[in-house]
C-alpha cells in the first residue's frame, strides 16, 4: 500500500477479538488502520466477521472483549461513545432497521436531535442531509414504509449524514438495489469527501469507490492492499469464496 505521508488515523483497530454468546468466534485478532479521507472496502465471504467488525467501531455491540478500537485517537469505550457516534456513522444493511420513526424527516432528525440540536437548525440539517442524498423534499413527511427500497437506502444514508459525521461506515450498501439505484448510490458515495469504510460483496463497487481493500475471512485480515491488485488475484479470490470482478477479467 502506498503510504508516503502518515496522516492522523481516523480508525485504529488493534488485535480485536469477539466471540458471540453461542460460542461463534467472529473476530480473531483484527488489526487495521484507516487514515483520514481514505475510502476502504471490507470484503470477504459470508460470516467473515465484516458486520461484527463494523459494529465495534462505534460501540454498538456491548463491550469490547479483547483488543482496542480508537476513533480519531479516542478509545471506543463508554465514556467516549457519545463523541465517537458524533464522528462515525453506520448505515446498516437493512434500511428497515435504520428507519424507525413515523416519518422520513423525523428519522433524519433523530441523530442530530440526540446531539441536542433543535428548532430551525435541526430543520436545516434535515433538509441539507436529504438534499445531499438526492431525496425529493416531498418525501419528507412520508412514512418510511411507503418508500421504495432505493429511497429507503438513500434516507438511511441521510440519517447519518445529518449528524455531520467525519467517518461514514456502510454495511452492504448496494445489496437489493436495482441498477439505477445502485448507480445513484455509487455516484453519491463518490461525491462525499469523508473517510469511508464499506463492507460489501459488490466487488465492482469496491473497484469504483475504494482505492484500498481489506479482505477478511474467519475473523482475520487475510489481505490488505490496493483494490485493483487484490481483486485481480484469482487464487486469492477463489480461496476466500470470492471471484475476480468481470471488469478485471475482461481487461
Amino acid at each position, binding site marked *: 500500500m502506498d503510504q508516503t505521508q502518515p496522516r492522523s488515523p481516523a480508525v485504529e483497530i488493534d488485535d480485536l477479538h469477539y466471540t458471540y454468546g453461542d460460542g461463534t468466534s467472529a473476530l480473531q485478532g483484527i488489526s487495521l488502520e484507516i487514515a483520514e479521507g481514505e475510502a476502504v472496502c471490507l470484503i470477504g465471504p459470508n460470516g467473515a466477521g465484516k458486520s461484527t467488525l463494523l459494529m465495534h467501531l462505534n460501540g454498538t455491540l456491548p463491550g469490547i472483549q479483547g483488543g482496542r478500537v480508537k476513533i480519531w485517537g479516542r478509545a471506543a469505550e463508554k465514556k467516549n461513545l457519545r463523541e465517537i457516534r458524533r464522528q462515525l456513522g453506520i448505515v446498516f444493511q437493512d434500511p428497515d432497521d435504520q428507519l424507525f420513526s413515523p*416519518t422520513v424527516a423525523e428519522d433524519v432528525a433523530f441523530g442530530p436531535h440526540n446531539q441536542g440540536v433543535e428548532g430551525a437548525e435541526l430543520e436545516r440539517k434535515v433538509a441539507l442531509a436529504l438534499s445531499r442524498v438526492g431525496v425529493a423534499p416531498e418525501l419528507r413527511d412520508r412514512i418510511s414504509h411507503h418508500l421504495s427500497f432505493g429511497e429507503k437506502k438513500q434516507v438511511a444514508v441521510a440519517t447519518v449524514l445529518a449528524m455531520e459525521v467525519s467517518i461514514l461506515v456502510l454495511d452492504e450498501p448496494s445489496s437489493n438495489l436495482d441498477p439505477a439505484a445502485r448507480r445513484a448510490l455509487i455516484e453519491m458515495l463518490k461525491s462525499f469527501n469523508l473517510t469511508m469504510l464499506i463492507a460489501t460483496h459488490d466487488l465492482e463497487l469496491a473497484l469504483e469507490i475504494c482505492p484500498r481493500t481489506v479482505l477478511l475471512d474467519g475473523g482475520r485480515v487475510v489481505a490488505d492492499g490496493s483494490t485493483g491488485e487484490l481483486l485481480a488475484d484469482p487464487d486469492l479470490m477463489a480461496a476466500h469464496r470470492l471471484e475476480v470482478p468481470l471488469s478485471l477479467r475482461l481487461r
Partner: protein
Amino acid sequence: MRRHTFEQLARRPGYLQHLDARTKTACALLLILLTVLLPAEATWPFLAYFLLLFALSRVAGLSLPALLTRLAWIAPFVLAAAVLLPFVPRAGSRVAFSFNLAGRPIPVYRDGLVLLKAIVCKAGVSVSTVLLLSATTTFDRQLAALVSFRLPRLGISVLALLYRYLFLLQDELARVTRAAASRNWRSGRPALRLRAAGGILGSLFLRTYARGERVHAAMLARGWEGGALQRGAGSYQREDLLPAGGFAVLAAAIFAAAFFF
C-alpha cells in the same frame, strides 16, 4: 394498499385534517370521557353523539361503510364481554321477557338489557371517535400531540415503534405464509398444517426479536441514550380554539341534558 387508507385520508386536504392534532386529540378525549360518564339509562344522548360523529365523518370525507367496517372489528370483543349480561339476575331487576330453550323458560332481565345497550353504545361512540381522529390526523401528529400533553415519553416511543414495525411484521408474515403456501402448506394434513403454523409463528417471533436487536443497535449508533423518539408539536394555531370550544360546549350540553330529559 387497504391498510393505509386511514393514513392516506389523513393526508388529504380538508377542514378537519387541517386542525391542530392537539385540538382534535383533546376533543376526542373529552368526548370519550363524557360518553363513559353517561348514565346507562340514557339513549338519545348516545344517538346524538353518533350523529355528531357521523356529521364530522362526512366533513372528513370518511364514508359510512368505511367507518362501520372498522367499527365491526370491535363487535366480537364487546359482545363477548356483554352478551350474557341480560341473563344474569340482579337484586330487584325485572324480567323484560322470557323465551323457551329446550323446554325451559329463560328469563331476560331489563337491567341487563340496559347495561348491554350502554356498553355497546359507549364502546361504539368511543371507537368511532378514535377512528375519526385517525382518519383526520396522521399518526406522527397524534404522537406529537400526546408528547405535548406530557404523557409518558417511553410509552409514546413504544407506540411509535409499534406503528412502524407492525406493517413490517405484517409483510414478513405475508412473505412467510406465501412461501409456505407455494409448497402446498394448505393442502397438507391438519396436524401437519398446525405444526407448520407453529413453526411460522415461532420463526416470526425470532425474527422480530432479532430485528428488535438490530433496530436498537441502529438507534445506539445514532447517539440514542434512552430519550423519547418523538418530538412535541410546534406552536399552537390559535384559530383552532373556536371550533374546539364549540365542539366542547355542544358535547357538554348533550351530556348535561341527559340528566334532565
